[in-house]
């Protein structure tokens, strides 16, 4: 990669398919194979993806660094850039910069129990963490994965997560607000209804990670606090407008911090302390 942090690196789309009606999975790889194998990152980090002539925006990484070579994104068609991204096919080239951001402190998670709470599109960054923990299973205590979507068709990576239910080294709980298929065999209700399944939690020894739509945080955090988990062990990853990824353009500023370099992962204590984060 060039030492100019603003120059995108050409990456090739190797695979893409629809996760839901408006969210598409993109698997990309640096054109240079050696570089592809060396590219390292942390779960929770993001990259700046661009199409020259259209623009650039931040996207959470959905793959895990424990499986090097390919970078995965789950991208919702929501604006000018993503509309153009959806028009691209396999083997077309996009520009990518990064990784950026602090990511999840996976070293601190070692030997701890992990609860991953996801709403909707929050599955994109937290899938990275989940896969990372499963790939390094011996380093962590119990792992709980709680994911809520509006309808079965809106659950990202639905098949992948349903398969995870077969494993005996993970508690995987899935829910939908409403089943419009009549074939949903998992829980029905908002994601907080899954919290009753969390019994015998050892709060001091547990980290919780949360990502979802803004409305979800308050209710989920109330439940986590009821479990007695310390505020600094509750982590969430946030969204902001970004144009640089390195604390210069100013768009992601919140008070004294830049989401792109001081975040996007923040603790619940940060939220109370710094205001306006969520």
């Amino acid at each position: 990669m060039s030492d100019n942090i603003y120059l995108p690196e050409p990456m090739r789309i190797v695979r893409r398919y629809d996760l839901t009606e408006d969210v598409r999975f993109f698997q990309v790889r640096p054109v240079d194979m050696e570089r592809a194998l060396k590219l390292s990152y942390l779960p929770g980090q993001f990259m700046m993806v661009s199409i020259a002539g259209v623009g650039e925006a931040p996207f959470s990484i959905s793959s895990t660094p424990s499986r090097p070579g390919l970078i995965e994104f789950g991208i919702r068609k929501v604006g000018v850039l993503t509309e153009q991204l959806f028009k691209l096919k396999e083997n077309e080239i996009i520009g990518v910069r990064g990784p950026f951001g602090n990511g999840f402190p996976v070293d601190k998670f070692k030997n701890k129990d992990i609860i991953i709470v996801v709403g909707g599109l929050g599955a994109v960054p937290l899938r990275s963490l989940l896969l990372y923990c499963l790939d390094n299973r011996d380093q962590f205590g119990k792992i709980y994965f709680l994911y809520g979507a509006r309808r079965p068709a809106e659950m990202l990576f639905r098949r992948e997560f349903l398969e995870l239910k077969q494993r005996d080294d993970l508690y995987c709980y899935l829910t939908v607000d409403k089943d419009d298929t009549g074939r949903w065999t998992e829980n029905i209700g908002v994601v907080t209804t899954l919290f009753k399944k969390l019994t015998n939690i050892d709060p001091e020894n547990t980290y919780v990670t949360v990502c979802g739509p803004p409305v979800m945080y308050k209710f989920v955090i109330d439940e986590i606090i009821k479990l007695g988990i310390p505020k600094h062990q509750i982590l969430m990853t946030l969204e902001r407008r970004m144009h640089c990824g390195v604390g210069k353009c100013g768009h992601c500023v919140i008070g004294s911090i830049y989401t792109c370099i001081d975040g996007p992962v923040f603790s619940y204590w940060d939220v109370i302390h710094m205001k306006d984060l969520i």
Partner: protein
Amino acid sequence: MKVLKLKKHYLKDYLNVLRNWGEVYGPVKQEDKYIYGLLDDLDKLDTRMLRTILPAKKFLVPPRFSTFTFKDHSYEPELNNLPNRVVFGVHPCEIHGIVILDKFFLERFPDPYYGERRRRTAILGLSCVPDDKCFAKSTNTHFAEFGFDLAFNDLDDFYLVWVGSSLGDDLIRLKLELFDEEIKQSDLQKYMEWRAWRDTQYKLNLDLTAMPDIMELNYESPLWEKLGDKCLACGACSMVCPTCPCYNVQDQIRPNKTEGKRERLWDSCMYKQFALVAGGHNFREKRSQRVRLWYTHKLKAFITEFGKAACVGCGRCIDTCPVEINVKTVVSELKGGK
């Protein structure tokens, strides 16, 4: 630090010599205001200026510039062929502004575009006498000990010239014979008297002690709504502020659709779209939230980040804001005045 003397009537001769090194810019009158203009004709130079409309940041972070060109999938950074520039007439407060930009752009994740322009821009400071909008003494930015290449201190018939960098020394050597290297006791005396006199000339004094705490305690204050109602969200405060660094990014594409460039443009957190994300959520929809952010960032956040407020007391916001939202009025209201 090396200090020399330059007779005042040699100034234009000296600036003329500097053209051998690069383009020479300096204060030029434009209607009733001043700008940093290209001194293609040295008679345009007007050292009576107090503050230019735009600060010298425009040389280090131009209002609009290309970061790279692209063709198909290769990218070519636009860092070569930047001109050498001399900016004469930079006042101490503005030099402090540049020092703040240096920290911002060069410490964490160094920015090559800022770095290259900074390297190629010689900052030639000039002493000043404040008007009723200057409050650099309150921000402790009324003297600059570093951050310049040369600094000219006006002492009636001569300038005391402080050499602040290796480049500054090179620039002196371009025409050393114009300078007098002998500083007499009487010159020192004159300088001391001038300093003491200038200190007394600050008519606007703001007590900025404890501003971070005062900002924190005012976070939920109705004051922000009041200011938000008044603010026109024109962003002029950001454009004229020597320490506002925020920018937007835009791609420009040629009609062939495979070639173009990625540009950076000055942006302002006062603009409504500043924190708008795709999908339509705006993290700072209300003007009151945006005014609060601007002042939080200047008077509190920078202190957390760099140990120093990002206001240098230049008075440009006082001079510019059409509805009198500026550091003077906001600080006064934050402290319960008016």
